[in-house]
């Protein structure tokens, strides 16, 4: 069983090494992510963000603009995740025993 686990980790690593053959080199400015239009002619999001973040939201920090405006719904999801963590800890660990003890 243990060897099976090690083998699957090895297969996973080999798979990722195989994936490297298609990846663009580190910092390659000609990669598709860094172009202005994609292969089918739609705009590439990141270049649009760099060019228009200041015009659209008056904010120099592009990450804030992406986080707060272009992809704000992801940020709402992130908020919900952290809220979920809080209420889950409350659900799992809180016993609400103190009030009962006071009543007795």
């Amino acid at each position, binding site marked *: 069983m243990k060897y099976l686990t090690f083998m699957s980790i090895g297969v996973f690593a080999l798979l990722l090494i195989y994936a490297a053959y298609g990846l663009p080199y580190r*910092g390659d400015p000609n990669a598709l992510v860094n172009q202005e239009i994609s292969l089918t002619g739609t705009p590439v999001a990141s270049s649009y963000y760099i060019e228009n973040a200041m015009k659209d939201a008056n904010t120099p*920090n592009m*990450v*804030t603009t992406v986080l707060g405006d272009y992809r704000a719904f992801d940020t709402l999801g992130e908020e919900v995740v952290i809220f979920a963590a809080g209420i889950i800890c409350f659900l799992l660990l809180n016993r609400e025993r103190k009030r009962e003890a006071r009543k007795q």
Partner: protein
Amino acid sequence: MHWELEIVLYIFLVISAVVSLHVKDLLTAVVSLSVFSYILAMLFVSMGAIDVGFTEAVVGAGITGVLYVVMIFRTTRRTND
């Protein structure tokens, strides 16, 4: 960019990850994990992701470390592997 610096940081990152998985005391493991997070934050900053580095430093090395310690305080620091 600063590839010499980054390679040193990467090597320390791997070492701290191995150490935190290998030590027999959970409290030491948590401290080593905080070191891991802090080196990770430095790597992020050297790669130009200042926001992510900031977050990782505050959350990974700060809050998560405290929560780990609280959890070990409530349970046990003994481990067999």
